[in-house]
């Protein structure tokens, strides 16, 4: 009898101990999951801050004053350069050039700017692509408006678009198209925007309140210097 009666406290003790251990484990796992989630969110927020400043800085570093078309509280209208060509030959009405860029010119949305005079000319279409400018060079033929450009002239292919801080993200809009997001929706609209400053400009970028964790760098005031200003 003594041995049978001893079983109940033993079982209860075991249950209590198991509960305590399981509870501790659950709390530990939940804390760690929260930590991981907070780490991921913190990385995403830092990326949003970083990407916003990097993209705008890269696009405007070589911009001249004439390339900045307008600076609003939440928008920046600017020429965005997609490639550089150096005229090497003319064939009929086609201008051949050595070309290097982030992408091929698109006659639908691109224009061309003569680098040393800042004169803008239109692109009406592609020419033949068969005539190389030189060994190892990528040759591109374009039909350009206006008088033929002298051999050696530097042409900058650009499109005009607008960067917006809106709906919690940095977005880009070209023409009448919709605004395409560049960052995750991590920004605080009320405290994010552009500020003109003489011939330069700056951007105040603020992250919206985090759901899980505070980020060490919640906001940044980024001044965008330009080599040509």
């Amino acid at each position: 009898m003594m041995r049978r009666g001893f079983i109940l406290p033993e079982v209860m003790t075991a249950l209590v101990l198991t509960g305590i251990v399981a509870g501790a484990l659950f709390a530990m796992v939940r804390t760690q999951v929260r930590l991981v989630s907070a780490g991921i969110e913190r990385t995403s927020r830092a990326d949003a801050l970083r990407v916003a400043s990097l993209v705008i800085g890269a696009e405007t570093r070589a911009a001249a004053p004439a390339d900045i078309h307008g600076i609003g509280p939440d928008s920046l209208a600017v020429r965005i350069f997609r490639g550089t060509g150096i005229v090497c030959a003319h064939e009929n009405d086609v201008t051949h050039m050595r070309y290097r860029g982030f992408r091929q010119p698109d006659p639908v949305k691109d224009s061309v700017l003569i680098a040393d005079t800042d004169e803008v000319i239109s692109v009406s279409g592609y020419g033949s692509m068969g005539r190389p400018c030189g060994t190892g060079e990528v040759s591109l033929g374009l039909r350009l408006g206006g008088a033929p450009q002298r051999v050696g002239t530097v042409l900058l292919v650009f499109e005009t678009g607008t960067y917006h801080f809106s709906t919690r993200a940095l977005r880009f809009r070209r023409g009448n198209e919709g605004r395409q997001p560049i960052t995750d929706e991590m920004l605080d609209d009320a405290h994010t925007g552009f500020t003109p400053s003489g011939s330069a400009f700056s951007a105040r970028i603020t992250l919206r309140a985090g759901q899980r964790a505070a980020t060490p760098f919640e906001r940044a005031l980024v001044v965008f210097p330009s080599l040509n200003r």
Partner: protein
Amino acid sequence: MSPRREGFIIAVTLLVMLLLEVLAGGMLLVALHERVVATARNDVTTARARAETAIAREVGAWKHGEFHRMRVGEVRAIESDSTSVRIERLRGDLFLLAGTAPLRPGASSGGFGRAFLLLRAFDTQMLLQQLTGALVLAAPAQLLGDTRVAGALSTDCEWTGGPPAGVATTRPDMLTVGTAAEVAGLPPVLLDTFPREAAPRLAGLSLSEIAALADRTATGAITPAPALLNGNCDKGHPANWGTPLESEHPCADYVPFIYADGDLEIAGGAGQGLLVVTGNLVVRHGATFNGVIVAGGSVLIANATVRGAIYARSPSDPAVLLDASVLFEPCAINAALFSPPLLHRPLFPPGRIWLPAH
């Protein structure tokens, strides 16, 4: 305690430790990712700044590179401190400087920071090609009295152009040669059909850019003469245009670029160099000038000698030579276009200097 119970606790402990290690590892990966991104950004920014600095260094040392002697299309690469600058003459008046710096100094592979800069320059070849005769004209001209205009090549100096005419003019029907005047050359009078850049641009540059390159400016009337200061050529003296008459003189090697915004009269004396006059030009009273004269208005040469070439650009203002001597002289022309100290300084384009790095 049975062995079975001891095993249970060990298993729980190991499980907890494994969880902690996995989670700690995850956090470490996140931190490492941030570090890699931050380092890469720093490397790119630093490399780009080093490329830009390398370009700026070459611009500062431009005169030592003799880049104005490069042919169109020629490329020179300059390596220094693990950076390189590639200088290409795109056009006679346009240079492209491409700077490259590795992301990690000393590394032979990996990414690079790049920068591109445009420079404008005086296009010597363009002006040389337009000097097709001793006297180049676009307007009515009269050669009167004992005037002699001769286009001939000497073997002393290199000349890359064609045989020089005596008078090269777009209007031969409006050229009057007096009975005592003499015109010689290959041919003596050339119907000039050479395509010329529209005034007021000269050698690819605007007049304001040309003025920025001048060693000295002049207006009104002047009698140039060499000047000394403590036995050395006084290049700061306003009337010192060097001397073409005394080869041993300290100022014999001083060949300035003189710019006159408006009318100019050279009343005697002697000088040499490149003379650009935007208005009317008068040379008289026994004056001697060696080099190239470019005049935007009328030209009157009376009882004076010019060795080199005269380029009268105005299509309407007449040129009159009276008892004058104008002799095509390649040595004087080359000296005038290659020797002025400031003529081949680089200029920044008006619109933009730095190009996007693609």
